[in-house]
């Protein structure tokens, strides 16, 4: 119970910090929007509706992935100011609570971005979804969690490295490839209605399994990373 309270305290702190500046949500949103616009210019989505449906899932996730990397790079640097991170390390609360709070906060930020981006995306790409749209309400959170849990972990891992902004995508992308494959396949399956429900379900299950496995390793190893000196 106390563990849950620690997680909630960290979450509240992160939400308040973000509410005061709104830097990462605004940045992510504008960045994702720009990626969508660039792909729109490159492919002319309105003239080729079938092709658009086939590639839209990939484009949406690429936009979200790059946008969340820009925000994740900042997520621990704000803890470096005034030696806040050193204070966190000395605090008696378990380090994984700090990690979980941060992951949940980042998850909420990216979900907020998705809530704004998805309608814009559908309008710009003239998308007419053929499958069951409500499945996306399952795929998006699972996929986002997969990106955010590993992203937050590796952002902490590369925090004291030289050129950490470059290091985060270099570490995050190879590890996330199976999750990216699952979320892109499931999203495309819903958009085109080419996959049947059982196949989409298997992708969602894989995504959920990936989430569980990497959340567990992240919680177990976070203390090591935080105190890696």
């Amino acid at each position, binding site marked *: 119970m106390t563990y849950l309270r620690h997680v909630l305290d960290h979450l509240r702190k992160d939400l308040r910090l973000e509410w005061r500046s709104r830097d990462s949500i605004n940045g992510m949103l504008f960045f994702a929007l720009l990626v969508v616009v660039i792909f729109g210019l490159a492919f002319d989505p309105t003239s080729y509706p079938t092709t658009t449906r086939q590639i839209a899932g990939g484009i949406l996730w690429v936009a979200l992935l790059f946008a969340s990397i820009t925000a994740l790079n900042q997520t621990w640097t704000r803890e470096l100011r005034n030696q806040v991170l050193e204070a966190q390390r000395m605090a008696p609360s378990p380090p994984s609570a700090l990690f979980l709070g941060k992951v949940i906060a980042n998850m909420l930020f990216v979900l907020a971005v998705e809530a704004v981006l998805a309608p814009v995306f559908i309008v710009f790409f003239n998308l007419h979804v053929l499958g069951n749209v409500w499945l996306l309400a399952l795929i998006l959170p699972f996929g986002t969690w997969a990106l955010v849990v*590993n992203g937050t972990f590796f952002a902490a*891992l*590369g925090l*004291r*490295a*030289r*050129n*950490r902004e*470059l*290091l985060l995508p*270099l*570490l995050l*992308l*190879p*590890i996330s*490839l*199976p999750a990216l*494959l*699952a979320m892109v*396949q499931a999203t495309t399956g819903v958009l085109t209605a080419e996959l049947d429900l059982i*196949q989409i379900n*298997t992708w969602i299950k*894989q995504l959920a*399994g*990936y989430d569980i*496995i*990497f959340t567990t*390793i992240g919680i177990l*190893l976070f203390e*090591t*990373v935080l105190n*890696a*000196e």
Partner: protein
Amino acid sequence: MEQRTPTLRNVAWLWFGIAIAVLVVGFRQAIFLTPADAAQGDIGRVFYYHVPIAMLSLLFPYINFAASLAYLFWRNRDPLKALTADALALASAEVAVVYSSICLVTGMIWGRVAWNIWWTWDARLTSMLILWLLYVSYLMLRRFSSTGQSQTLAAVLGIFAAVDVPIVYMSIRWWRTQHPAPVFGGGANSGMDKSMLPAFFWNLAGWALWGVLILLFRFALERRRQLADQEAALQAIEASLEIPQ
């Protein structure tokens, strides 16, 4: 491992000689003695290099995983043992990258002739590529992170990568079994003629010996670097203790 004893050097030279001899026998078997593949012709001989190296390149990540776990276990209990484990982890990651690169390149040479394309997003090709990417990112992390903590961070990433490898393997298999690949590579073990076995096993043995040799060589090199670092740190401390007259 780190002292330059003559016995150790002799063993290393002996090992080197045996590895070269076995590789020469394997080369003779694969190129001259074994009849050309009935279906593929001479390009089928790439198989004797590609498959043993592919099998071995799946072995070195396990060494890296075990060494990373050992490093994290000994990190606060016995730092000197932990450093040894770290040297082994680094060496095995480098050998894994080398072997999977060779596996990818030989596979591409074969694919160019047999399939007429250099690359296809087939299950095995994709998972080997991701394996390569994972261990390249491991080496990148070791380059970029600051010296004091690079071993710990690398060990953590080694564990992440090792957990990721089976997931990659399963998810990609699943991905490609629902879309049959356009050009399907003949399975390695879908029956091997008896005349091909000696070439295969000589090369497997030769490349295994060679891989262990470069692994241990790199390990010894890294150990010497660590000891030199320790020596330099010790001298720096001693120099700082001397009171200027």
